[in-house]
């Protein structure tokens, strides 16, 4: 891995603890009738307890269904409820401050709506970001915010990390060409996801500055 100069964050699963229910509600709204819908929405018998998995599942459904303006407004309302109940992880603010001091470009690259991301940042008092990309200003979901963020910070993808705790997130990072970093929030799920060969993995955000320092240190010859 090359020395990292920028990090892209998806708030859901990386910056805060979200409840899965709002995303399950979005998924239920978007579930399509017929075999295609059953394939997308009905694969699991039990609803996921993971907010991240529910979120990415809802994004898949949004991508497949292509929701209209009325549906988009309803989804945004539910997302706002999700943001209102989200609890920021305690290690986020010190880690972001340290990364900022290390001159790392920090960017939000989220598939949430502009209003939801804005409210999330306002509620959590996170002022560390050089750019904020969401599905409205990037014109799409999943890889679209990552691509817009990359264009915004003008860094080579190989010098950028994207943090995620889902298989979908790892795929999206790969498709955007950035380094996929697994947030190992749940050991059992992380063990499964580690088989998908993420570029790296961390247990807590407080490890990110050390991660960057190690990469810098490995880039320097010892003699």
């Amino acid at each position: 891995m090359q020395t990292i100069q920028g990090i892209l964050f998806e708030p859901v699963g990386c910056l805060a603890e979200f409840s899965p229910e709002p995303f399950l509600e979005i998924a239920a709204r978007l579930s399509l009738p017929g075999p295609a819908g059953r394939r997308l929405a009905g694969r699991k018998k039990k609803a996921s307890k993971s907010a991240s998995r529910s979120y990415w599942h809802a994004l898949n459904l949004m991508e497949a269904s292509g929701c209209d303006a009325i549906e988009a407004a309803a989804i945004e309302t539910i997302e706002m409820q999700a943001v209102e109940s989200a609890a920021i992880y305690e290690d986020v603010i010190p880690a972001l401050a340290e990364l900022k001091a290390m001159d790392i470009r920090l960017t939000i690259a989220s598939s949430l709506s502009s209003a939801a991301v804005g409210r999330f940042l306002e509620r959590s008092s996170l002022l560390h970001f050089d750019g904020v990309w969401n599905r409205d200003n990037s014109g799409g979901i999943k890889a679209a915010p990552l691509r817009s963020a990359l264009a915004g910070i003008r860094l080579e993808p190989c010098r950028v990390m994207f943090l995620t705790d889902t298989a979908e997130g790892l795929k999206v990072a790969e498709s955007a060409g950035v380094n996929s970093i697994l947030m190992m929030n749940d050991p059992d799920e992380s063990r499964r996801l580690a088989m998908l060969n993420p570029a790296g993995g961390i247990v807590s955000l407080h490890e990110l500055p050390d991660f960057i320092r190690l990469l810098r240190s490995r880039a320097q010859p010892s003699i």
Partner: protein
Amino acid sequence: MKKISIYRPTTVDEAIQILSVHGTEAGVYAGGTDLLIRLKNRLKQAPTYLVDIKKIDNLRYIKEDPAGGVRIGAATKLAEIADSDLLKQRYPMLVQAVHMISSPELRNVSTLGGDLLQEVWCQYLRGGYACWRNGGYLCYGAIGDNSYYHSAMGGRLCYAVYPGDAAVALIPFDAKAKLATPAGLRELTLEQLVPGDLMVDGRIQSHVVRFNEILTEVVLPPPQPGVRASFEKLRPRGVWDFAMASLALSLQVRDNTIEDARVVFGGIAGKPLRERAVENFLKGKTLSAELGGRATAIALANAAPLKYNSTKIDMAKGLLASGLAKLNPPAPV
């Protein structure tokens, strides 16, 4: 096993020169019980150039210090420490601890320096997984089986525990380590020598020794009067295994009152874990049967066990209670 070259310098200065030339591709070779296994396991971080320091004759000794302490050369075999009458008389707890390291066969080969600076024995690292210590960017111990050899006190990228027993046993004596460096001799406390996971020369390691430095000596200050000390170790097997939890406990006692205390846990964190909260609690207390329960209540307050190793904290607390009981002999009838 990859092809290696061996140098056999006869002086420490010569060894440092060779290490400086090859950088992190070189490594010090003494007993080899850690290093050769890293090579055999084909670990990426295993060196290509071995600098065999066994021919340097002034690194293997146990001798009395004029000030009343003892100096131990870094290349001294663990078996020699375990058999030393001088150490048995002055620092019986250290001898007790060394007796619990590995097996008699390995103690006949392993050196004190090697025990202090050994690589972690995480099964994922030793199994060749691309983890933080092996060229990768993920700790498999944090998400896999972490019941035995991983930290229950948090981590810093790598969650393996520091595996050595000698450092745990030396810290209570306020022992110092001497490092030969290109800029001359450097003296460190044992806590400074093995402060836990840190980045040195682009690698994650448990100790501060750089690629071109050599640990030459450990200096034990004169034993303090009234010191009672014990070392206990719990491990998956009765012998030849690393600590799941260990404790080196030293109390300086006068008239049954604890004047000073050292409490150092092993096998539960990425470093020998000195528990200062318990040390401070014990100072000024009278040795009693109830002390163990009160000390364990405040011990390891920052514990952060992984999914499968919370039992390590219970073990460590149990060792503290039994250690305090052991150092409080029953009053004569």
